[in-house]
């Protein structure tokens, strides 16, 4: 294969990768499922924030609870 063809192919691949990356990134500014920030649940009484590492359930009765004493 002639040298000029190799150079042209490399340039085209580089250009395609650059354009393709730019299109993808501008179309995916933020993934809604990315756990960058923990979810915040607001209720009448206050705000609950739990990181994804903490498993929770609204159906399960707690055995005991944290509280002011």
């Amino acid at each position, binding site marked *: 294969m002639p040298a000029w063809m190799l150079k042209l192919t490399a340039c085209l691949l580089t250009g395609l990768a650059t354009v393709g990356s730019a299109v993808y990134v501008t179309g995916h500014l933020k993934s809604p499922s990315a756990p960058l920030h*923990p979810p915040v*649940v607001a*209720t009448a*009484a*206050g*705000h*609950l*924030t*739990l*990181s994804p*590492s*903490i*498993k*929770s*359930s*609204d*159906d*399960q*009765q*707690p*055995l*005991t*609870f*944290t*509280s*002011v*004493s």
Partner: protein
Amino acid sequence: MSPEHLEFEALGTVCQLYAVDCDARSLAEGAAWVLELHRRLTRFDPSSELSAFNASSGAWVRVSATLEDLLREALYAHDLSGGLVHAGVLHALLAAGYTHTFAEVESGRTTPRSTIVLDPLPALSDILAVAPGAAKLRPGYGIDLGGIAKGWLADRLAERLGENCVVNLGGDLYARGIGPDGEGWPIGFGGTTIYLRDQGAATSGTNKRRWGPDLHHLVDPRTGRPAKSNLEEVSVIAASGTDAEIYAKTALLLGRQSAEFYLEQHCPGWWLSP
């Protein structure tokens, strides 16, 4: 699997122990241990080891290994909270009117009175020194361990009770192990149920132990007076009961805006009210 359970009163509050693969006798021994340490560490009993230390007037005095550990914990809490969790607040609590247990206040045997306007507190390391087997307190100051002892005791008692247990001392707790069903221990937290494994949780608030407008048990060392915060209650999850208690108090004293930023750096979960 249903865990063994024991409920008892100590530390001026209700305590609960739950444990899997642990017999009732071990739980009873755990409760007795808490009651014994309460007797030695309460500031309300003039004959307690803590009261004797508070009366030592600037001299180096011998302290038990337990009191030494707790005094070191107090210095750790002061450092971890940037000075906001301050065990040297006894004179400020007394000046604010917290001179008797709440059981005595509620029974009508005493009426708390606030009398003195105070200054900011010096750093805890400026008034408390701890060495192996001994400690020294600057004259005019006193130690109150109410702000750190429950979480500390919960962590230690969980070690005694085995690999799978929850120790809840008046709302400050440590959950050790996988829980009764292998998912973690189900704990009520901010209106929902969370599952904790080898983690602590604690709540700090100004809506209990109150005896008048702006008079409550949580002293802000920056002012020497009961804290004025736009938060009434903070619950947090942390790696231990001790740390949870420290983070909860720090966040409450910081107020809502700074609390959220602070807790993001330290805790996997929190509840702020209102």
